[in-house]
Every structure is written in structure tokens, then in C-alpha cells.
């Protein structure tokens, strides 16, 4: 029987789906709670391999928790999906942007600054409206539209008062005039397995499914596929969700997610996403 592990800190819809699908596929999938696991760095790799198997699906909802655990598992020569390097890049919007730019992938204009004063200058440089995002975090949390100088000053001032050093890193992007939707492409290895539109819920401009956004199937064109695969490759590849916007200068990639949430996509796609990811994990094990 094929053995895989899944590390988690909260069992959500996707993790349940993996467990169910693994049973159907005859995979011995062991779910390990990161919250109670003691990372003994001295432990013999053999012991770790017996517990985790050769391949681990990293599903911790806490980015930094997942990152540390991945570093540990990789140090014991366990294959983690996704790798530390990929998770580190995708868990930080600025690092993602750098990789996208390096790979010549169209992405919104972005300025990073380190103080509230320079953040306001960055907004003025990009023009209004602009968007302020935290470099880490998801689900559109703390993503703010800066519509004019007054609102920019207030929002930046509020950010300045938030604790945590990452809150004093100001990642500012041009606001993209787009339809009230974005495109999410789910990549598994070398393949774009499904794509959806995510429509912003009524009363919000953010399209995150976690915020009540609605999914609709998106036809995969050659252009979309090429761009999504290039973006996935730019961050190091694996199981990824590439998020894109339709703009008047073509499709722009604005984010690549490493711990893919696919409940919205699964509600409209004919592809069994959990099955595709498990098959990929098995393939990686045999490598």
C-alpha cells in the first residue's frame, strides 16, 4: 500500500477531501497534527521516514508553522509538497513578485517601501487608486484600496500602529481596472488541471472565495495555460494556485499560492482536484 502523510493544524474541507479520496484510492494517508508534534531535530532520519513516509503534503494553515516543519522534514530527506523554497516564495507576495518579474511574467506595477512616509510617496508615484497589501497573509485580509490621498494617509497610519515587523513593510500595487472577477488556475506538477473565475461577493471588491466569492468555470485557452505554467515554474513548481487578473494590457499574474484551497474550484470543475494532487504525490514518491 502506498504511504503518504499530510501535516495539518486545522482540518478544513480540502484536508477532509484528501482523507476521503485517499481511502477510495487505497492510499495509506496519515494525517499528522503539527500542533501536537514535537520537532526533535536530533532524531534519526530513519525514524522520521517510518512516521511520515517518503512524501508529505504540507497543509498547515499557518504559513510559518508549515515553513518550519517543512525545513525540518527536508533536512531528513523527505519530499514535501510544496518545497520549503516554493512555500517561502509563495508565502511572501514580494518574493513572488520578484520571481514573476525575473521570469518576464506580466504582473501589476509594484513598489515596496519601509516607512509610512515613503509608503505614501509610493502611492503618489503609482497614482490613485492603489492597493496596499500585507506581504504575508491570505484571503484578502488587510488588503486595502487607497482611493485618494486622505484614505491612503488613514490606512497607512492604521498599518503603522499594527504590531509585528512585517506590518511595517508596505507592499503597494497599482489598482487594476478589471471585471469584478479574477482567474484562479490550479497547477499540479506540469499541468494546469482546472481554471475558475472567482467573482467578488456583493459589497466587496476582493474576489477571495474565503470572503464569499463565487466560482465559475473558466475555459482554458493556450494563452492562459502558458502563462499559468510559466508562473508556476517561476516560483519553483509543485501544486500551486496561480491567480490572475484581466486588464486592458492583457492577463496579469498577481499571486501564486502554495497551500492551494480548492473548495470553490471543486464546486464547478469536472476534475477531481484532490485525486490529481494525490496522484502527483505518488509520482513524486517513485522518483
Amino acid at each position, binding site marked *: 500500500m502506498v504511504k503518504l502523510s499530510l501535516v*495539518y*493544524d*486545522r*482540518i*478544513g474541507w480540502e*484536508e*477532509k477531501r484528501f*482523507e*476521503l479520496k485517499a481511502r477510495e484510492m487505497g492510499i495509506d494517508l496519515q*494525517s499528522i*497534527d503539527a*500542533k501536537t508534534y514535537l520537532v526533535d531535530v536530533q532524531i534519526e532520519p530513519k525514524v522520521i521516514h517510518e512516521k511520515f513516509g517518503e512524501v508529505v503534503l504540507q497543509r498547515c*494553515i*499557518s*504559513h*510559518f*508553522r508549515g515553513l518550519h516543519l517543512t525545513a525540518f522534514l527536508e533536512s531528513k530527506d523527505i519530499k514535501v509538497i510544496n518545497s520549503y523554497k516554493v512555500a517561502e516564495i509563495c*508565502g511572501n507576495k514580494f518574493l513572488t513578485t520578484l520571481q514573476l518579474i525575473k521570469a518576464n511574467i506580466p504582473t501589476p506595477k509594484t513598489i515596496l517601501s519601509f516607512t509610512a512616509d515613503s509608503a505614501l510617496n509610493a502611492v503618489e508615484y503609482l497614482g490613485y487608486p492603489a492597493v496596499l497589501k*500585507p506581504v*504575508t*497573509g*491570505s*484571503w484578502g*485580509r488587510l488588503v486595502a484600496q487607497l482611493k485618494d490621498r486622505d484614505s491612503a494617509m488613514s490606512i497607512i497610519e492604521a498599518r503603522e500602529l499594527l504590531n*509585528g515587523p*512585517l506590518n511595517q513593510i508596505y507592499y503597494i500595487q497599482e489598482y487594476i481596472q478589471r471585471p469584478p472577477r479574477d482567474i484562479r488556475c490550479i497547477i499540479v506538477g506540469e499541468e494546469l488541471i482546472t481554471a475558475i473565475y472567482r467573482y467578488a461577493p456583493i459589497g466587496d471588491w476582493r474576489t477571495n472565495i*474565503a470572503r464569499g466569492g463565487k466560482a465559475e468555470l473558466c475555459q482554458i485557452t493556450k494563452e492562459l495555460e502558458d502563462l499559468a505554467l510559466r508562473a508556476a515554474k517561476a516560483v519553483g513548481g509543485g501544486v500551486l*494556485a496561480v491567480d490572475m487578473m484581466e486588464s486592458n494590457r492583457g492577463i496579469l499574474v498577481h499571486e501564486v*499560492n*502554495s*497551500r*492551494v*484551497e480548492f473548495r470553490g474550484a471543486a464546486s464547478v470543475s469536472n476534475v477531481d482536484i484532490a485525486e490529481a494532487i494525490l496522484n502527483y504525490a505518488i509520482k513524486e514518491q517513485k522518483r
Partner: protein
Amino acid sequence: MKAKCLECEGEITIPDDVVEGEIVSCPDCGADFEVVEVSSGKVELKAAEMVGEDWGE
């Protein structure tokens, strides 16, 4: 399956396919709980973690 809310003692319905680590919410007070153990038709709950700044995809 039913469980009693640790906060308000309201009745929480536990889905049949519940697994350890899953989050359930109290319909009365809205508190979230993590299912820490499932055994012989009973579940043990504890207060769920608060959403962290680094949570997400």
C-alpha cells in the same frame, strides 16, 4: 451526533463523517471548537485556535 458547547452549553451537531482536527461551531454563541478525539459515538472538543496573521493559502 451531538456535543455540548464549552462556552454556552448550546447543542452542537457533529457531522457523521467528523474527523479529528475538524472545526465545529456552536449555532447559539458562534464559538469555534476543534474536535480532538472521536470515539464510540462521542467527541471531545477544545477551543479552536484564533485565526493567525499568517493563516491562509
